[in-house]
């Protein structure tokens, strides 16, 4: 098999091809190592690991030859550089973690390697996963492999898992890990025309993932298809005693849930998601989605989530509050960057001023303020109370419906620099994704169409806690109906 056709396979097809010995894991890995080099100008990877990838591919070949294949044997995967990888530079895209080589492996990546997967490298992201455009990375912005036809300006891949999304879309990774605190898997998936799944809170361990906002951080898969997301989720899910919020629940065979049969399922259409200023084309795509699911035998139901408009301000209080606490550990003392000062306090202040970029500083300051004496009740406690009400909205709605269909984001991807001068305008990107983080619910973005200017748009399915099976089943039906076959202008190996 030639390289371009190897790069065009889905994870499920590559798995089956390896099992049939149509090609070796070494060949597949080698094709992907070349692809990683080929897309260098997108800046999707911070640290490629080609030698390690080849060694892992060879190990997989030996197991395949012995008939001891593991579920992901020989599958080349990119890892968001927020996951600690033993002995491999881990940066969180921040200057403050300069030179940090973890001596441990995150639970999710450990499960990937135990399943036989191959590490292609560590992907770029917004610094500490704070951003919606992958423009806040210390290592520079990531470019989306998509461009507006006839327009040469580079487009953002979304964020914060922008490097992972760009790598999968440009065929320089078969799949990738992402993390989603307010939409950081789903929004970049939507912007790059791939599938992104945020599982239920507690489904995938957070152990070894650099913390942003612990009560909102969700590790999850980013893939080319819904089936691939189901396969990868099974590999990375499961109870982990090292994460006290990890749920002790069994891991189902998510792939087996993809029956294509959604007859009789009730699909909620929340009316509050028709926000002011949403482009007509996104509303039209949403209506298509409703019709596709109706045609497959599901029943659309109008529902109300009255607290929707308060989800964003709630999120932008809680997430920075948790971040200001989590990021207090970066003090220049035991690891990472240190800038010397006249006093201990000055050393801390200079280190953190030099080590954190503008958006991280902004969120740490906001978080510090809303947690400070005199303002804690008015902001932080208030937001926690509203969070309860937002979660209640979902509980009530799920008494009437089995899952919900909404757009993933209120716009297609924008050009690099287009919105960077206004933090609040940037925060509005997360309007449809943030509620599922606050409520801890599983949600997936599926590529469903193109915008008028030729960029991908996603639709989102949100489900009940720990019911990823229904979410995936409905998502696959949506994927089949949408027939999204478009490719970005730039893919490794050339468009096959």
């Amino acid at each position, binding site marked *: 098999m030639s390289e371009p056709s190897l790069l065009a396979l889905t994870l499920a097809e590559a798995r089956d091809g390896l099992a049939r010995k149509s090609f070796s894991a070494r060949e597949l890995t080698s094709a992907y190592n070349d692809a990683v080099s080929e897309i260098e100008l997108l800046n999707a990877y911070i640290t490629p690991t080609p030698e390690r990838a080849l060694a892992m591919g060879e190990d997989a070949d030996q197991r395949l030859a012995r008939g001891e294949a593991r579920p992901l044997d020989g599958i080349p995967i990119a890892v968001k550089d927020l996951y600690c990888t033993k002995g491999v530079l881990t940066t969180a895209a921040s200057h403050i973690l300069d030179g940090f080589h973890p001596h441990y492996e995150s639970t999710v990546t450990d499960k990937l390697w135990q399943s036989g997967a191959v590490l292609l490298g560590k992907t770029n992201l917004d610094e500490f996963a704070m951003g919606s455009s992958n423009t806040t990375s210390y290592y520079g912005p990531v470019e989306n492999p998509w461009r507006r036809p006839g327009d040469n300006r580079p487009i953002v891949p979304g964020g914060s898992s922008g490097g992972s999304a760009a790598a999968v879309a440009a065929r320089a990774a078969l799949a990738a890990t992402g993390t989603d605190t307010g939409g950081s898997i789903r929004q970049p998936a939507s912007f790059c025309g791939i599938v992104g799944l945020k599982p239920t809170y507690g489904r995938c361990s957070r152990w070894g993932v650099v913390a942003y906002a612990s009560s909102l951080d969700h590790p999850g898969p980013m893939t080319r298809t819904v089936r691939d997301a189901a396969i990868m989720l099974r590999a990375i899910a499961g109870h982990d005693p090292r994460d006290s919020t990890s749920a002790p629940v069994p891991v189902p065979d998510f792939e087996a849930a993809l029956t294509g049969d959604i007859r009789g399922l009730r699909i909620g259409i929340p009316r509050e998601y028709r926000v002011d200023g949403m482009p007509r084309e996104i509303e039209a795509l949403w209506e298509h989605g409703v019709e596709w699911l109706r045609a497959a035998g599901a029943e659309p139901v109008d529902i109300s989530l009255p607290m929707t408009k308060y989800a964003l301000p709630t999120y932008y209080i809680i997430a920075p509050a948790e971040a200001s606490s989590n990021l207090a550990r970066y003090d220049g003392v*035991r*690891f990472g960057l240190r800038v010397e000062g006249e006093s201990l306090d000055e050393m801390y202040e200079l280190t*953190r001023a030099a080590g954190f970029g503008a958006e991280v500083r902004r969120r740490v300051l906001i978080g510090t303020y809303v947690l400070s004496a005199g303002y804690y009740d008015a902001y932080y406690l208030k937001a*926690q109370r509203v969070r309860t009400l937002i979660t209640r909205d979902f509980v009530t709605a799920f008494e009437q419906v089995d899952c919900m269909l909404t757009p993933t984001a209120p716009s297609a991807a924008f050009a690099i620099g287009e919105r960077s001068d206004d933090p609040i305008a940037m925060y509005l990107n997360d309007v449809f994704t943030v509620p599922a983080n606050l409520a*801890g619910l599983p949600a997936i973005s599926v590529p469903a169409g193109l915008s008028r200017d030729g960029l991908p748009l996603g639709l989102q399915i949100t489900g009940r*806690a720990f019911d990823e099976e229904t979410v995936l089943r409905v998502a696959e039906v949506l994927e089949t109906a949408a027939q999204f076959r478009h490719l970005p202008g730039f893919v490794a190996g050339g468009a096959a």
Partner: protein
Amino acid sequence: MALDKAAVAHIAALARIKISEAELNPLADELSDILTWMEQLNEVDTSGVTPMASVAATGLPMREDIVTDGGCREEILVNAPRTARGFFVVPKVVE
């Protein structure tokens, strides 16, 4: 809430982040805008509503108090700025 320069300087000191004099005013405007935007939460009646810290099931799981990891001093010291005889060497942080 409108923050002034002095308030931003105070928050920055609490957060241990050096902010230059020139950055204080623009940052005060920016943070004030964000806080004002957040204050739309005041429209919501939350009387009697319990605050939510996490969606995870309440109560932390307990485990046996036994050693589960360790014996990897060399690996841990890999990230140390300086070491001596198996210890981190760091600036004095305890008065």
